């Protein structure tokens, strides 16, 4: 008995060339970088608008963390230790700002480009694909979010609100939160008909902002409410950041991160499909 020649062995582990190409298409390509390049060029004319996004979360930090924090005193942190309220609330505000920044770019701006600006119409007449448009928009939201998260972390560090070396992961986690919300926001936007529909986004993001254990621990809720809150993506983000910054790190954080990543990937995929469905008709 002789062994079959090597070339006859089926290499089933590797996807076929066609499937690889399709995967690459679904994941976007260089076209998304070029649309990001366009956005960067537009904001060169409006860098002040761009930079202004740094301030909103800082105002919250000053008002609620430092101001209100004086009245609140100490609260129980994630490891059971007592921490000053401002230390407790700061990571929550970082999570909120990651959410808001991502949502703003991927909802209002995307809707404008989709319905009024005809930007995507122009872009899709070139070799750029719908999936690349989705990736570019979400990627752009993240670039912006990264800048804001870094600025916020610098302020937190300078105020002495960071207590663990794990906090170096706070910026990547803020980006992960941004990724999940940008992808979901963009998906939602592709279903919107008019500016009125944006009330639904506020209807979703305002309670998330207020009730996702951003300002107080989950333990204040009755059991039934707790279960609901635990499934919200912002809660997962708040816990991730709070545990990292205050140094209460465990393997459960990986699941939380995975949850956000899955939301982001699903949103990225659907929004790319939707852009194609809306414009390539």
């Amino acid at each position, binding site marked *: 008995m002789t062994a079959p020649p090597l070339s006859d062995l089926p290499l089933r582990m590797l996807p076929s060339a066609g499937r690889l190409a399709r995967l690459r298409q679904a994941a976007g390509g*260089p*076209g998304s970088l*070029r*649309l990001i*390049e*366009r956005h960067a*060029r*537009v904001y060169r*004319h409006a860098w002040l608008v761009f930079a202004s996004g740094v301030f909103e979360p800082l105002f919250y930090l000053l008002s609620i963390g430092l101001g209100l924090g004086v009245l609140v005193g100490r609260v129980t942190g994630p490891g059971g230790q007592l921490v000053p309220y401002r230390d407790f609330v700061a990571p929550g505000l970082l999570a909120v700002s990651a959410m808001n920044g991502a949502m703003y770019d991927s909802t209002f701006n995307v809707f404008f480009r989709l319905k009024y*600006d*005809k*930007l995507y*119409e*122009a*872009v*899709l*007449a*070139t*070799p*750029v*694909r719908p999936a690349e448009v989705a990736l570019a928009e979400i990627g752009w939201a993240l670039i912006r979010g990264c800048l804001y998260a870094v600025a916020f972390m610098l302020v937190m560090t300078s105020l002495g609100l960071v207590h663990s070396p794990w906090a170096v992961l706070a910026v990547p986690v803020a980006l992960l939160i941004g990724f999940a919300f940008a992808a979901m926001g963009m998906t939602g936007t592709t279903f919107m008909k008019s500016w009125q529909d944006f009330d639904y986004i506020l209807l979703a993001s305002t309670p998330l902002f207020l009730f996702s254990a951003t300002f107080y621990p989950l333990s204040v809720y009755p059991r039934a409410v707790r279960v609901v809150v635990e499934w919200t993506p912002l809660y997962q983000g708040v816990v991730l950041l709070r545990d990292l910054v205050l140094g209460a790190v465990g393997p459960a954080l990986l699941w939380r991160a995975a949850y956000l990543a899955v939301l982001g990937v699903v949103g990225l995929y659907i929004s790319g499909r939707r852009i194609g469905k809306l*414009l*390539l*008709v």
Partner: protein
Amino acid sequence: MPEVLVRARGLTKRFGTFTAVDGIDFDLYRGEAFGFLGPNGAGKSSTMRMIGCVSPPTEGELTILGADPVRNGPAIRARLGVVPQEDTLDVELTVRENLLVYGRYFGLPRALIRERTAQLLEFVQLSDRGGDKVDALSGGMKRRLTIARSLINEPDILILDEPTTGLDPQARHVVWDRLFRLKQRGVTLILTTHYMDEAEQLCDRLVVMDHARFAAEGTPRELIERYSTREVLELRFDPGVHEQAAEKIKDISAKRTEVLADRILLYVKNGDEALAAVRAHGLEPLTSLVRRSTLEDVFLHLTGRRLED
């Protein structure tokens, strides 16, 4: 035989139950200027979008530059230039940045784009406006910029959907002049229009589209010969006798007579002879005009004089 760049057989586009394009066949050859004429809603833009690979055909066969637009859309689009019906310029950028950013969508290196930008702005006479925001440009300038933008990738086919609709006469003539120069340089053009003079000036070959199908096709000269006469006699009578005159004129042997609300048109071989015959019937028109047939006569004959949005 020149190379076939676009080949369509039984090409059909439906939106739900509405049929926008109903099984059309055509071949587009390299180097020619091919026109789609037709009233609004005839299916011209739907056809352009299918050729531009931004609208998948519902049925039929479509091959563009030898490839299938559904499977190879991005690769085909890389070799097309598109001037859409409504400008899609990037209003947040300057004139020069518009060309740069658009060229980057095609993956062209910045240095190459800069080089072409200078030439293209020169070509569309916008060299001195390079640093201006797009918003500040007039309608005609925006149109020219859109044409410059569509040429940034040196396309094999330039697709123009109503390139001069909405422009004032001066601006239209500038655009025509530029398009004519492109044609002289051997750029393959596909354009839609409802301006007959535009079609007559620019198109080597054209089709008249009506109700999602081709009503006629040929060169402008062929269409005039086939569907009209050499000359047209236009008569205008006093409103009081308009109808009686129309009745009497039926006796005169014209190839076709058309009675409009304010005029009577006689399609004849010799307009002066026909006018003499009208007078011989004892009719004295207020005004009379003998002119050559144009594509407009063909168009109105084929698509009727009904009004559509």
